[in-house]
């Protein structure tokens, strides 16, 4: 099963190596990882999407992460009400005749064209993974030259519903 795990870590040398090395050693597959600074000086936040066999393994991964000295807090936010986004850049084959057509496709996704050349077009899209996947599929017939994805970054919503119905798991498709 796929899980979204966030970790608040100190910005110290070696912390990324320690965390990813640990995931590798305990045989957890990382689907994506994103890292960046937070509102607090000296703190970074990592968001992992991991593939885990079962809940026992999941508990191990969070405990092992928590054990690291430079890891401040670890949360599995998969079943919480969360905001999860990914930024994706897509370069497709295109020419001036197709541009308007593509514009029409991407508009409902609130994606934008960020670079144009004689024979290609670069699109930026932000959103949940399923939305991104849907757009990629629509663009595929035009010929995809390159895709770059940041991986998911996420946090929990300001307000949590009283009962969690698990529907947010669908975020991960």
């Amino acid at each position, binding site marked *: 099963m796929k899980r979204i795990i966030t970790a608040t870590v100190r910005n110290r040398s070696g912390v990324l*190596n320690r965390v990813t090395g640990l995931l590798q050693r305990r045989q957890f597959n990382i689907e994506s990882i994103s890292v960046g600074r937070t509102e607090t000086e000296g703190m970074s936040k990592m968001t992992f999407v991991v593939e885990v066999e079962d809940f026992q393994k999941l508990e*191990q991964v969070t405990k092992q992460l928590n054990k690291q000295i*430079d890891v401040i807090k670890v949360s599995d936010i998969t079943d919480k009400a969360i905001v999860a986004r990914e930024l994706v850049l897509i370069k497709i084959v295109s020419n001036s005749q197709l541009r308007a057509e593509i514009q029409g496709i991407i508009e409902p996704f609130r994606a934008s064209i960020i670079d144009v050349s004689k024979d290609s077009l670069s699109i930026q899209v932000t959103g949940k993974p399923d939305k991104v996947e849907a757009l990629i599929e629509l663009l595929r017939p035009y010929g995809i030259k390159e895709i770059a994805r940041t991986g998911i970054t996420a946090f929990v919503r300001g307000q949590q519903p009283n009962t969690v119905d698990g529907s947010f798991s669908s975020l991960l498709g």
Partner: protein
Amino acid sequence: MERTQKQAKEAAETNEPKIGADLLVEALINEGVDTLFGYPGGAALPIFDALYKAQDEFDQILARHEQGSIHAAEGYARVSGKPGIVVATSGPGATNLVTGIADAMIDSLPLIVITGQVAQSLIGSDGFQEVDVMGVTTPITKHNYQVRDVQDIPRIVKEAFHIATTGRPGPVLIDIPRDISGEIIDIDLPNNVELDLPGYQPTFKPNPLQTKKLAEAISKARKPVLLTGAGILFAKASKEVQEFAEKYSLPVASTLLGLGAFPGDHPLFMGMAGMHGTYASNTAMYECDLLINIGARFDDRLTGNLASFAPNATVAHVDIDPAEIGKNVPTDIPIVSDAKQALIRLLSHDIQQPEHDKWLVRIHENKENYPLWFNKPQEDMIGQWVIKQVYEATKGNAIVTTDVGQHQMWAAQFYTFTEPDKWVSSGGLGTMGFGFPAAIGAQLAKPEETVVAIVGDGGFQMTLQELSILQEKGLPVKIIIVNNQALGMVRQWQESFYSERYSQSIFNIQPDFVKLAEAYDIKGIKATTQEEFTKALPEIFDYEGPVLVDARVLRQENVFPMIAPGKGLNEMIGVKP
């Protein structure tokens, strides 16, 4: 002309400015270090120069190989309860420490490992004796640091000691680039440094709701078992665990590394559990309805096949490391706590006595009917017999260190430990060559006690270069080589599971160990029969200095009883007929 030591020392004291390495040594002195195991080299020269000036502050031991120094530091840490301090140089110096670091990590021994590193300008350039020590040691340290600013040294050292010795102990490494250790400090640094570890707050006291749950489970249990691990030793909770076991008449099984935490001669003690454990312990763990694990990590050598491990038991697990709870065995009552704190709390609960008289009778019968056993040959020696002789000659009071393998299992089976911190063995990593240098460290920590290194002929040959230290430091370590001219445990498995194909496990050529001892100016004794060994015992233990004994034992003797790999606690073989 060479300066005399005195001149050099005076020059050092008067003229030379303070450098980063001096800050390091000051910090070590502040932490109360009394013994340091080191091996110098290029990138560590500033550190060793600072150590030179501190020769009166603490004992500095030059091992003959970095692996020797770190195993000695582990032995020191295990019996003293204080962190072992190791200093080595960059590159090969650091990589030679790796086995010891991994050993300390898995057996939870507190170590401070300081490595020299090439200058920062050379890091990443594949410079001479450069290795990515941070990368290499990250998975085998509790934490590691590379110093990037000389002013951080006091804080980092303080944090390193705090991390190594609190919570679940473990090794912490500090990598110091040469330009940092040699950097002149021209500003005044504050005297007090603060820990800066917001992500490190080990849970020390138990959750009272969980201990209450365990108390209730005890009162309902009909077949309770207490499993004692090394966590009790680290928490210094032997007194409490005995009181607890006696209060509710709980039969006790021990892990390999937990031996001595509970008295081995106590009527409630069933012996070591696991692959070569006793029938009484393993059967009790298989049949129990309540298993209380205090400070053990449910290692695979203990549990055997997990599917048949304590299948009908409510499992309670007390561990200071939350990641150990539920890792291997599903746990019903998790108690994250220091063992001593948990026991104090449990003792404070007023709980109803369990009704388990029948269970105690059954356990007593198992102990009586199926004890550890061996068939003593007429004249020849076997390992079990040798250990028994050593046990009797030392009245069970010695500190015993071992390598890994048959001799280790026989020592665990036939040397009865009645007190904590007398047993020093490489459990989790199973490191050959551990026992002898560990004995050196143990003897340095406890100069008044008898220290016996029970080693195999294979393991001893991995670190025997440390014989130099015995004369140099006047350490009366008694080395007993249980010499079967083979890698006994490997040979045993090849016999049992590989149709007697003894691939690379038989030592047909060996050094003359007596001559070897004499080459190091140490008394050497060879014994080939029981009579010779018995006669040699006073020469070994009444003699004031170090002795090396080459005890020739029968090669074909195997360790029993046994749970074969992949089998369960209820599938023991080689139980006394």
